[in-house]
């Protein structure tokens, strides 16, 4: 686990040693910390726009004593797994714009308006809470469900935007985005830990039906 202050020290330390400016996005628990929705996270998740920025960041971390670790151990043999570096119990996952099955879409990049600048070199933009929900709904870990509950209960959710982005994810190739989101929202809503407007779930299932039908037509 890494708390707010440790995360800040870590990013300042890396930023001070970067050879040039780098811009990246914070997703997952790191993004939630920046939004004040969490006070600690298991790992630091960062998304880079290009492989060169990621390489520079990784090499800087390695030069500071971090060790490269195999992402397959955590993520298995999935596509678009991150590069990982770790120091004692702190792990940094370094993704490119494709994050396992999700895409850090152009919409997500535009919505990441919170800028966190470390030592004048590292500019990290925090992903919008809505987009963190979409990325967290892909997994089946209990802690991700807890995070979804936390985001929905603590922020003002633009449900329309949530649906639009999940549809966008399908268009970008994440076929199960709507299904995953709908399933998680329904499950949590049935457990009465969140309140989801009924028409939102209806809209999601309608979109899913449409997606299935369109796929059926394509196969024919």
């Amino acid at each position: 686990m890494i708390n707010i202050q440790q995360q800040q020290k870590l990013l300042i330390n890396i930023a001070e040693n970067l050879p040039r400016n780098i811009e990246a996005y914070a997703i997952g628990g790191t993004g939630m910390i920046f939004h004040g929705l969490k006070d600690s996270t298991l790992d630091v998740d960062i998304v880079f726009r290009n492989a060169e920025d990621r390489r520079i960041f990784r090499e800087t971390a390695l030069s500071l004593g971090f060790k490269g670790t195999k992402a397959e151990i955590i993520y298995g043999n999935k596509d678009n797994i991150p590069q990982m570096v770790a120091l004692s119990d702190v792990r940094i996952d370094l993704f490119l714009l494709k994050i396992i099955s999700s895409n850090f879409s152009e919409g997500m990049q535009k919505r990441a308006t919170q800028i966190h600048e470390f030592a004048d070199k590292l500019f990290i933009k925090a992903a919008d809470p809505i987009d963190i929900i979409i990325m967290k709904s892909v997994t089946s870990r209990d802690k991700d469900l807890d995070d979804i509950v936390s985001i929905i209960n603590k922020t003002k959710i633009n449900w329309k935007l949530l649906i639009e982005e999940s549809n966008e994810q399908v268009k970008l190739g994440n076929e199960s985005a709507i299904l995953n989101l709908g399933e998680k929202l329904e499950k949590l809503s049935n457990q009465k830990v969140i309140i989801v407007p009924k028409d939102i779930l209806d809209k999601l299932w309608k979109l899913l039906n449409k997606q299935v039908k369109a796929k059926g037509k394509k196969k024919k």
Partner: protein
Amino acid sequence: MKTKMNDLELAEELNGLNTIQMIENSLNVGRAKAIYIIYKLRMKGFVLTEYRSDKTRVYHISPQNALGGTSYIDIINKNSPIKLLAVDVHKIYGREPSIEETLIYAIKRKSVRYIIATLSLFKKIKNWSELYKRAKDNDLVREVVALYDISRLIIPKITRMPKRFKTLATPKKKDKYKFIIQGLDSSDFKNIEKKWKVYIPLNASDLTDYKVEVS
């Protein structure tokens, strides 16, 4: 107390400005417990303390306070009588931006409110060569000098800008007029506009929060 909450939940529950009395009421606890809660939250970095004019303490509680860092708006608000409300978040960690850097940032925001608040920063400028360098890098030299001239009209005791700065900023014949904010010019500061070939997006009435001394 309502239910058992962890520190983050407590900070969320008390998010905003609070006095000890308000904490006592909202959590239904006694004064000693309310003081202990503030102590606990301060240890986690969730509390910023301010003092009202009657010297009573006001606690600004937010989970985001624990992030620390500073922002250009914090610096403007610390140094200007005109306060800005932070709409966008731009936090800076590991360094303290200079007044010179903040001034250039504010001009680049292209917002009337930022420009007005920023005028008083000229009073705090110590490093004119840094300001010139930053202005030149951002192609804002003439804008800086024009706004400096406005600030001299309305704010007392502004340090004199080095002559060299002004000489270097003097527009050439071929230079065209520039907007600080596209489409906005001034009815009251025509002389300054003409001198630096920069349209000023302010009128004297915009500066009533300062003591205006427009001739």
